[in-house]
C-alpha cells in the first residue's frame, strides 16, 4: 500500500521526465555562441507558431549528435568543420552539398550557412605577441617554451592540436587541458600564453588578444549551420531558413552582449530588434529560476536515491551472505563507483531508451548511489553478533521474519548511514546532470563556467552545498525515528 503509493509516485515523476512528443526541442552546446544561436532558432520557431523547448548547454558534439539521431532534440546549431571532422569523419574536405547528401542518408538535414565562419584559432596576448614578434602559427616554432592551455575537445580532435602541431612542425612541451572560459582567465592572468579559441569569441576583442594567422591553411572552415531532423515539420524547417544573414561582426557583438548581460535570450532579441546595445537589460529573476533548478535537482537526486534503496537493500542482504554471489555483488557495485561520473554519463547516452534525458542522469545517479547502501547493508548485517543470530534462530522465527524483525533493525544504524552517504553524494553528483541537459543546479554552474562568471557559478554551487547540508541534517533527524531507541542507548 504505502510502497505501492511511493512506487506509483516515482513512476509518475519518471514519465513526466520523458520528453513530450509535442514541442520542438532545440539543443545547444556549452558555449556562448551556441546558446545564442539556440535562442535565435527558438525565436524563429515561436514566431512561426511552434511550441519550443530548450535543452541548452549540453556537453560536447557527440552528445548533441546522439541526441539528434535519437530524437531527444530536433535541432541544434553546428559548424561545417565539426560536421566533416567529427561527425562524418571524412579524410578529404567535403563541399557543403556533399555534406548535405551524407547527412541526409542519416536522416539529418543541414540549413544554409548562417553567414559567418567561426573557425578554430590560436590566440595570445597582443602585447606578448608584439614583444616576441609572433604573428603566425609558424612563428611559434621559434618559441617552444610558451605554455599552451587547450580545451579538452581541441586536444583530441582530428583538426585539433596534434595534427596541427604535425602540420606546422611544432614541438611544444608545455601543453595542458583547460576549460574554454577558464582558459581566457588563465590567459589574461598570464598562467598560460596561448589557447585555442573560436574566431568569433567576444573575449578576443575584450581581452586585447591577437589571432595567430593560419598561413598554411590547417583549420577547415567552420561555417555555422543548423542541423535538424528530416522528420521535422517542413514549416519549421522553412522558419529556420528565414533566419537571414549573420555576419562575423554581428555574431561577435551578440556574443559580447550575451557575456555582458549573462542573458542569452536578450542577446538573441538584439538580432531581431537590432536594439541598441545600451538598451536596458531585462532583469533576471533569480527566485523562480532557483526554485526550478532546486526542484529538478531534488527530483533527480530523490528518484535515484529511491531506486538505490529499493535495489541496494536486497543486494546488500544478498551480499551479506558472502559466497561467490556476495563477493560478486560487492565487486560489481564497487567497480561502478570507480567509473568517473562524466564517463558514466557518456557511456549511458548511447543506451537505447536512455539517450540525452533526465532518465539517463537518474540511472547514473542510481548506480552511484548503490555502493554505500549495498556495502553498509552487508556490513551492518555481517556485524550482528553470532549470539544474537543464534537467539533469533533458536526462537523458531522463519528466515524472513528473522531478517525483518531482528537483523534489519539491528543493522539499521549502519544501513541508514549508507543511505545518508548515498543521498549526499547524489546531491553533489547531480550537478553533472546539466552536462546532458537534464537540468538542476548544475545548469547555472555550467553556464557560469562558460561565462567565466563566479556569481552565476555560485547561484548553483551555494544552493547545492546547502542542499547537501540540509539533506545530511534531515537524515540525522530521521535517525531518531528510524533507529530503534534501544540501539541508541550507551552500550
Amino acid at each position, binding site marked *: 500500500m504505502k510502497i505501492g503509493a511511493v512506487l506509483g509516485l516515482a513512476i509518475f515523476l519518471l514519465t513526466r521526465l520523458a520528453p513530450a512528443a509535442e514541442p520542438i526541442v532545440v539543443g545547444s552546446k556549452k558555449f556562448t555562441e551556441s546558446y545564442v544561436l539556440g535562442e535565435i532558432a527558438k525565436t524563429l520557431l515561436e514566431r512561426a507558431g511552434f511550441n519550443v523547448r530548450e535543452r541548452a548547454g549540453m556537453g560536447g558534439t557527440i552528445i548533441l549528435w546522439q541526441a539528434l539521431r535519437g530524437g531527444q532534440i530536433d535541432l541544434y546549431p553546428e559548424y561545417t568543420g565539426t560536421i566533416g571532422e567529427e561527425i562524418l569523419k571524412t579524410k578529404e574536405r567535403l563541399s557543403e552539398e556533399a555534406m548535405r547528401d551524407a547527412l541526409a542518408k542519416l536522416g539529418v538535414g543541414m540549413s544554409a550557412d548562417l553567414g559567418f565562419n567561426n573557425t578554430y584559432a590560436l590566440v595570445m596576448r597582443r602585447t606578448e605577441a608584439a614583444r616576441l614578434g609572433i604573428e603566425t602559427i609558424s612563428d611559434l616554432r621559434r618559441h617552444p617554451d610558451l605554455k599552451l592551455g587547450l580545451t579538452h575537445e581541441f586536444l583530441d580532435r582530428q583538426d585539433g592540436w596534434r595534427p596541427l602541431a604535425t602540420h606546422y612542425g611544432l614541438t611544444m612541451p608545455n601543453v595542458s587541458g583547460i576549460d574554454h572560459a577558464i582558459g581566457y582567465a588563465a590567459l589574461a592572468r598570464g598562467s598560460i600564453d596561448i589557447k585555442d579559441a573560436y574566431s568569433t569569441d567576444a573575449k578576443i576583442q575584450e581581452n586585447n588578444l591577437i589571432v595567430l594567422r593560419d598561413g598554411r591553411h590547417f583549420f577547415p572552415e567552420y561555417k555555422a549551420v543548423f542541423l535538424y531532423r528530416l522528420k521535422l515539420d517542413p514549416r519549421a524547417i522553412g522558419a529556420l531558413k528565414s533566419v537571414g544573414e549573420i555576419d562575423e561582426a554581428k555574431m561577435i557583438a551578440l556574443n559580447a552582449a550575451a557575456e555582458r548581460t549573462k542573458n542569452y535570450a536578450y542577446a538573441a532579441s538584439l538580432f531581431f530588434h537590432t536594439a541598441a546595445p545600451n538598451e536596458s537589460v531585462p532583469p533576471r529573476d533569480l527566485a523562480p529560476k532557483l526554485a526550478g533548478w532546486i526542484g529538478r535537482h531534488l527530483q533527480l537526486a530523490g528518484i535515484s536515491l529511491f531506486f538505490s534503496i529499493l535495489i541496494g537493500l536486497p543486494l546488500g542482504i544478498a551480499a551479506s551472505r558472502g559466497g561467490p554471489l556476495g563477493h560478486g555483488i560487492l565487486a560489481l557495485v564497487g567497480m561502478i563507483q570507480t567509473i568517473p561520473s562524466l564517463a558514466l554519463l557518456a557511456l549511458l547516452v548511447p543506451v537505447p531508451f536512455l539517450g540525452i534525458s533526465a532518465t539517463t542522469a537518474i540511472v547514473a545517479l542510481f548506480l552511484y548511489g548503490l555502493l554505500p547502501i549495498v556495502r553498509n547493508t552487508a556490513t551492518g548485517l555481517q556485524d550482528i553478533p553470532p*549470539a*544474537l543470530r*543464534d*537467539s*533469533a*534462530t*533458536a*526462537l*523458531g*522465527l*522463519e528466515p524472513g*521474519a528473522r531478517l525483518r*524483525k*531482528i537483523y534489519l*533493525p*539491528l543493522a*539499521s544504524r549502519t544501513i541508514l548511514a549508507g543511505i545518508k552517504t548515498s543521498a549526499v553524494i547524489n546531491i553533489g553528483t547531480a550537478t553533472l546532470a546539466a552536462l546532458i541537459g537534464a537540468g538542476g543546479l548544475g545548469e547555472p554552474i555550467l553556464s557560469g563556467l562558460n561565462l567565466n562568471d563566479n556569481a552565476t557559478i555560485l547561484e548553483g554551487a551555494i544552493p547545492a552545498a546547502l542542499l547537501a547540508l540540509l539533506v545530511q541534517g534531515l537524515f540525522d533527524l530521521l535517525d531518531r525515528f528510524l533507529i*530503534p*531507541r*534501544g*540501539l541508541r*542507548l*550507551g*552500550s
Partner: protein
Amino acid sequence: MAGVSPLEQPICGNCMHPLVQLLGVARSFGETIALHPTDLDFLPGLTTALIGPSGCGKSTLLRLIIRLVRPDAGKVIFDGLEVTEANAQAVRRRVGYVIQEGGLFPHLTARANVLLMARHLGQTTPEMEKRLEELCALSQFPRAALARFPAELSGGQRQRVSLMRALMLAPEVLLLDEPLGALDPLVRSALQRDLKEIFARLKQTAVLVTHDMGEAAYLAHDIVLMNDGRIVQRGSAAELRDHPANEFVSEFISAQRSAAF
C-alpha cells in the same frame, strides 16, 4: 492442552520414554572433531547438566538438539520424531534456549523480547498479558522494568528476562548454555536458587551446560561429564565423586573442589 494452564502441563509420569534422544550424532568443524558419534537421551521432567572443560563439545551437543548446528552423522529425535531441516522451525518453538549474557535483542524492550514469538504466532493480548504476569512472578522480575531496554537492565535482570522469553511458549525442553557464566557470585547464587525452584515448580525438562561442578550438582538430577568430544561418564554427582570411571573424572572433580575451597 485446552483448559490446562501451561504452567501445570502434565508430564508423563509412568511412561518414561525420552523426550530428546541423540543417536550416533557427530559433528566436526573442518579438521577439528567437536563431537564423536554420541548416543544420549533426556528424560522428561529431569534436569541434565553437560559439564566438562572448554572445548569438550558440550555447547555443540546442546546446539545440535535444535539444529543451530547440523549433525554430520546420526540423528536427533525430538518427542519421537527425527529433527530435520524441514521441521526444525517447529521443534525450536517447542524448546526454550538461554545463553550466556542472555542474547536479548537490544532494539526491543524487555517486554517486546519476551512477547516476540507469541506476537509472531498471533496470540491475543489478554493471553499474552496473563502469561507475562505469571512469568514475572515466577522469575521474580519487577513488572515496572518490562519497559526497559536490555542496555538499561543489570546482568542478573537480563538473564531473568532471557529466561522469561525462553519460557513464554511453555517449552517442553529448556536448553541453557552457561546461563550464569557472566554474573558476579552473589547474583549468580541467587539465580541458581531461583532456577532450581522454577524447574521444580514447572517440572521442567532442562539441559544445562556449565563448567562448574557445584552448579551442576546443585541444579541437575543427572550429570554428563564430557572430554574431547566424548561422554566420559554419566551419573549423579555422588556417583561421579565416589565411582569415577577413570583418571580424568577424578582429576576434573578434585580440580573443581580445590578451586572452590
